[in-house]
């Protein structure tokens, strides 16, 4: 049927661990994103309040973008460690 990866992949014993970690981190980020959307939808004036010299909306925006990168780096760190530990 012509499926399967274009290159041969080795066995990955860390796959289950990485999936579990990914789901947990996804849920954590989704909760923060959902809170952001909920505040904007129900109490937008809260986003005009001043936090650290900026509007709360700007802080939330930078926070969500920064949080995505920080969580991505943490995720990669634990995944790489698990791959070294379980696949060696």
């Amino acid at each position, binding site marked *: 049927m012509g*499926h399967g990866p*274009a290159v041969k992949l080795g066995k990955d014993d860390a796959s289950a661990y990485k999936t579990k970690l990914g*789901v947990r981190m*996804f849920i954590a980020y989704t909760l923060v994103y959902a809170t952001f*959307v909920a505040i904007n939808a129900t109490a*937008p004036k809260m986003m005009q309040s001043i936090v650290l010299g900026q509007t709360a*909306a700007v802080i939330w*925006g930078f926070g969500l973008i920064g949080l*995505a990168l920080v969580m991505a780096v943490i995720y*990669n760190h634990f995944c790489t460690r698990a791959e070294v530990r379980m696949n060696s």
Partner: protein
Amino acid sequence: MVYTQSPLAIGLFIAFVSFVLGLSFYLARRTSSADSYYAAGGNIHWFTNGVAFAGDYLSAASFLGICGMIATAGYDGWMYSIGYLAGWVVALFLVAEPMKRLGKYTFTDALDSKFNSKAIQLTAAISTLVVSVFYLIPQMVGAGVLVQPLLGLPHWVGVCIVGIVVTIIVATAGMASTTYVQFFKGALLLIMSTVLVIYVLTQGLSTSPMNNGQPYHDFKTLQADAALNVNEAGYSVVAGLDSEFGKAGFVKLAKDGRETIWQLNKNDEGYRLEETLFTTKMADGTKTYNGSAKEDGMFFPVGHIKELRVNGQEVATTGAVGPLAYLSALKDSTIVLWGKQYIQEGANTITVYYQKPTPGDRVLRPGLKFKVDNATGTQTFNFVSLMLALFCGTAALPHILIRYYTVPSQAAARKSTIVAIAAIGFFYVLTLFMGMGAMTNGVINLTDNNMSAPLLALSFGVVLFSIISSLAFATVLGTVSGLIVAASGAVAHDLMDNFLGMRMSDKGKVRAGKISAVVVGCIAIYLGIIFEGMNVSFLVGWAFAVAASANLPAILMLLFWKRTTAKGIAASITVGLVSSLGLILISPDMWVRYGYLPTDAPVSFNSPALISIPLSFLALVVVSIMTQKDVVISTATETAGA
């Protein structure tokens, strides 16, 4: 606004196109197998792939559309940046590694990896084509829009240039050349956007911005008494309080034979009159700008600060500032935004653009574009639904997903997504400064805010404008090439090879891919020409909603629910595709395009994701539960035959 062509911009664009074409012909010699054509041989370095992700993803809608939206609607435009970036979290944590593990050339491969189902092959290929075409049209239209100020050529020529160049890129070396084009485009976009933001911050903020050495148009204010006698000599009233203008809150005055429209603001002495900008569309279709031909340049660029405050003090200029000080000064200042109102004067339709001084902290929070303050249930639904589509759409875009097949391992797929998040996240931070820079630097063309970023660059000089404009054109090249690879893969690999069972040799698969790329390229050129004038970012929203509804539920349930069946996946794609498209077609926005009143539309919302995504999940669960027997029978047959 009138644009003048820059030889430097033309030269830079020709140099970029020559470079990518040369690279494509060079790589073509190494692209003989299906693996190398569809997946670049699966040996692209994760860092290169990560930047190529950015080049693929940051389309004309991101660079031109978001900057333009921030320039005119402030924070609400940046909400798109936040939503798009959040979507990459879904791609990284849930989709990246399984996609690499399960798929070969196309998104359909991954969905069909466990089943070998004709239904999945057909529905997923159709979904890929629909999403890719919706994404292609605005890119091609964007190319036509850009070619006018850049090269001084008509719309259709721009569409043809992009279509032909991209078709050559894809048809020569497939994913290999596409990857490097996207890598260079992504890197250049990040570097030059950073340079533009450095210019914005170095110049700082001013109440009288200069536009490439030209002073900002001085919008006049007049005083009139209650009977509309203007305190400045020479003005006479053409259309007063009892006219259609007066009813809408405006008056039409004349001075020295020239008619102008003014916004009425009642005060103690009578009325304060604020100068407006306006366009007039005549019954025969001709259009004037502030009462003159477009070429006369009377429709001035806008965007300025009315009161600039730093640390509580009112100042005329800030000088060079850091990024946080820049946003802080904007927050404390009063920025002049522009409202829009339509007035019917006989057979002429007049669009009046009027000043709306707005506190900076109001601009830097949501609510200017999205109706979130005292919103009705429908308005809240629309907003939440849009944010859901942005969040779920990225990880379901076929042209993004196929990039996971170009790297050698699952770890490389993961790392390239992290590079993409860093690059795209950084770019989206820059969009806030580019958009706010355009909002306050007197560069916005109110009839087309898509050009805000290039025009911001023009305010700093022709050299920067030339680089940014040619880069904007290159932006279209990178994204369109990715879309054509995805669409041609859906035709040649999913439909011809898998669904129709046309047994092809390795070379035959490459030939089929190249022919499909040429056909898809021709269709893209045709669609780009016939959709001229359509809002560039309108169909991108469609593509996200359809991808999130048709593709994401199928991907996630395949990965995380063991009882998922082939029929369940096919049902999910079909229901997601039909419901999202159907709801869009009967939405108020579309009703206006059909020439009806939006209030007469069968549904009262424009964004379908909040309904179509759950429907797609539901269809998959119900059909999978109903077809569990098929799985058991099929397994039993396989066992018996073994």
